[in-house]
């Protein structure tokens, strides 16, 4: 049996809609991945515990509200606290260019802006999985 790539898609923070997250969820599914969709207003704690229970290979988060510099690093911190070092963490949404180096320093492997073609995200995931 073939191993499936499992991706947890979550919206941390207080954003009011999740259209963008749903678009990426569908694109990943159409590429053959299994997407666990957790929806709006997720805390970093919920995201990390869910990712562990779901044995996700990837956590993909999106934020529009501007709280990314706080919430994205909180997720990677919690993962590290729990000894999880093999999950690829991606960020998306409305993220100013200037914040990207900071986020990468905090363990967010890539940051995808609103205009990113879904294909780029898919290729990035396939090329950068931390487990085989």
């Amino acid at each position: 049996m073939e191993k499936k790539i499992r991706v947890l898609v979550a919206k941390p923070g207080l954003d009011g809609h999740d259209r963008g997250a749903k678009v990426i969820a569908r694109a990943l599914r159409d590429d053959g991945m299994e997407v666990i969709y957790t929806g709006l207003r997720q805390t970093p704690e919920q995201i990390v515990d869910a990712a562990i229970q779901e044995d996700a290979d990837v956590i993909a988060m999106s934020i529009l509200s501007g709280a990314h510099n706080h919430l994205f690093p909180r997720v990677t911190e919690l993962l590290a606290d729990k000894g999880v070092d093999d999950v690829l963490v991606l960020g998306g949404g409305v993220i100013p260019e200037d914040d990207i180096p900071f986020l990468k320093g905090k363990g967010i492997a890539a940051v995808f802006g609103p205009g990113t073609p879904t294909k780029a995200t898919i290729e990035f995931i396939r090329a950068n999985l931390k487990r085989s």
Partner: protein
Amino acid sequence: MEADSRAARVVAGEVRALARLITGLENGESQANLVMRILAARPRRAQVIGITGPPGSGKSTLTDKMIAALRKRGARVGILAVDPSSPFTGGAILGDRLRMQDHATDPGVFIRSLASRGHLGGISRATHSAARALDAAGYDFVIIETVGVGQSEVDVVRVADTVVLVAVPGLGDDIQVIKAGIMEIGDVFVVNKADRDGADRVVREIRSMLETAAALRRGSLPVRAAVDTLGGRIAPLSADQEHAAWAAARAVAAEADARLMPPVLKTNAGTGEGVEALVEAVAAHRRAAQASGSLEARRLEGARTELRSLVEERLDAALNEGEGGQRAIALAKAVAAGEVDAWTASTELIGLLIQGGKA
């Protein structure tokens, strides 16, 4: 041995070890099967509850509220939530968990989404063994939410001790009451979305179906005839048809029917109304099934089916891969060329598969 330490970590309640094991079972990893060999030797303790019903009937929301009710009683709860895989891409969007995320950080709750991966019975191939893994990890209750079902997805009855069948008002006459084939697997019936119009009517329709079914089980010829005249159609019925079916069923269903009748409850999963009663009804069913021996019989039947499908799957795999696969092709050519008959060729293949331990 690695399998021993992995099994020990699962039993000790290590969430990551459990999550990894379930992935291994989904992917058919041999190492995961070795871990299950160790875990299967442990006594079964968990009560396994299946939640099934049409798409969107509120199964996940109901599960969320059942988790809360069971947690209040101090029980640990594991959930396996199955959603369909796309037949085209093999991918899936697993959205059941969305409704249960309030419990994500509760250490007494473990929620795992499973894709059906081409399996058609409403659950996935790995669901049996994943449920057993949750049991070994110390969860007192295992709740299995099936794919939103139509009429033939009844595999959950092979895994669950108690099956909760969820119906709703307002889906249109044909689907709001569940199809006859699937009615048979319900141990407890729920009409969810009781805040909507028509819930009482759905309760009545389910009761009448159950009464008819109970009467049929007694071999009541008049009722069988009545149902036959309805052409197997359950809803919608004209007033006359309904009246005739009810009258016939009542005539033969004796007072004892009330006792044999599965409960039909109303819930509002949005508010949690009715969920306490549901949890009680599930517990009562399990107690009765244990006392009557039907729990044991059902588990035996479940094991039988599981075993059968495993044998089929492994033989099938062995016939399509490696040495067995090559020999199968060679023999097929020989059969086509008339050099050997199919029966003899199949005997050779079976021998080869068993000997090689490939299957």
